[in-house]
């Protein structure tokens, strides 16, 4: 991990039209290769925060800055729309809770994975295909399925296809929104292992939003606990989970059923 920050949130707040509070005054610095978990229950503001951080929703206040390639920190929302769209297709990735939001369901798995490559000018069919096959292997999907449509895949496979599709462009930062939501427990487990391995091997930084403490325990180095729009505690994951300081953090940790 280097000394230069990768993502910086400063006083990020968002209030929806009509006065509903999303998130309030969130700030943190993320370094290359770090995985930050954000936990909270429904209404905690974590999804709003993720939308702001990932360039999808301009915050009402505050800034989100990202270290562009070869440039200094840039305010994500000061970028022009094409620059931001390009960023979101290359250096960033978003793993959606519902794979349907992150995949073209009527394009084959290979086409989905190759899309990011083709979007930035890849023009050799053979190369694109072999990279797609390589990635299918890395996310433990049978190579035979490369020409199949994602709608014929199970939920876990769709999710893994989504991950491959994003990682193919070697992003430096990946946002994940409930990456294991809606999956069977055993499928969740396998997916988490995969994510953990990939994130470590590729040195990708990640922001993982979830309500599931087991997910952050396994995946993230650092943790932020959110409640009613605010960050109530933050620190190393094991510290926040083993020695929570804030009343709400203690409540959250003690509420988790131990298997």
């Amino acid at each position, binding site marked *: *991990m280097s000394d230069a920050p990768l993502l910086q949130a400063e006083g990020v707040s968002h209030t929806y039209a009509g006065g509903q509070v999303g998130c309030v005054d969130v700030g943190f*610095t993320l*370094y290359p290769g*770090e995985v930050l978990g954000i936990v909270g229950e429904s209404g905690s503001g974590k999804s709003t925060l993720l939308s702001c951080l990932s360039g999808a929703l301009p915050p009402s206040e505050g800034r989100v800055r990202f270290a562009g390639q070869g440039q200094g920190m840039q305010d994500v929302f000061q970028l022009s729309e094409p620059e931001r769209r390009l960023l979101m297709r290359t250096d960033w990735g978003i793993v959606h809770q519902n794979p349907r939001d992150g995949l073209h369901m009527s394009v084959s798995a290979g086409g989905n994975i190759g899309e990011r490559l083709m979007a930035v000018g890849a023009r050799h069919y053979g190369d694109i295909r072999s990279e797609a096959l390589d990635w299918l292997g890395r996310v433990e999907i049978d190579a035979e399925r490369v020409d199949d449509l994602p709608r014929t895949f199970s939920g876990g496979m769709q999710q893994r296809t989504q991950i491959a599709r994003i990682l193919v462009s070697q992003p430096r930062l990946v946002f994940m929104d409930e990456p294991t939501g809606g999956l069977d427990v055993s499928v969740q*487990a*396998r997916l988490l*292992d995969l994510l953990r391995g990939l994130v470590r091997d590729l040195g990708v930084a990640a922001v993982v939003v979830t309500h599931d403490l087991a997910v952050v325990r*396994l995946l993230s*180095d*650092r943790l932020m606990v959110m409640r009613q729009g605010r960050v109530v505690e*933050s*620190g*190393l994951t*094991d*510290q926040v989970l*083993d*020695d929570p*300081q*804030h*009343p709400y953090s*203690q*409540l959250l940790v*003690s509420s988790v059923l131990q298997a």
Partner: protein
Amino acid sequence: MTQKVMLQVQDLSKTFTLHTQGGATLPVFDGVNLAVEAGQCIALTGASGAGKSTLLRSLYANYRPTSGQVFIRHRDVIVNLIGAEPRIQLEIRRETIGYVSQFLRVIPRIPAEEIIAEAAVAGGMDDAEALEAARALLQRLNLPERLWSVPPATFSGGERQRVNIARGLIRSFPILLLDEPTASLDAENRNVAVALIMEAKAKGAAIVAICHDETVRAEIADAVFDVSLFQAAA
């Protein structure tokens, strides 16, 4: 901090506040001062509940002290672990302080040898070398070979403990925190573990250990530190 001191605890205090129990406070220790030099092993003693584990965990930033400092010699610079940026705390854990805990937090579905190799890879060893080193250690610790490629979830206490030890000692950490390193081990494996610890010590590691087994304590520790002397007022 003199050149040889690797770890210096200054005025460390810890009180738990249990908000879920109506804000009840649980004071543990108060005003702990301790210095550990390279090549030195200090054993924490004190009755059960005195705060030995709590202190050890505080030295790893796993528990957050209520007040005080923990100075670490990290990359030849003195850094206060308490209050350092998470990035620095993670760096310290990666490079400077190793922790052998009493309970192996089971990372599910990862085979034993890989858990150990991971730790070596994190320290810069290449994958193949790390796996070999992991297997060599497991061999030394007498873990049956058929268990090497099995995730430790189904291991016995002693088997898990050996995985723990291997994971903590595969790299030459400048500072080692050992929480009951020989618990659950039979005599033969206890000796192996002690040998490994002594080797680390010989390489210059500064060690803080909790060891209720007096024989082992006598073998590895240069001094004892009684945590109960710093018992916080209720």
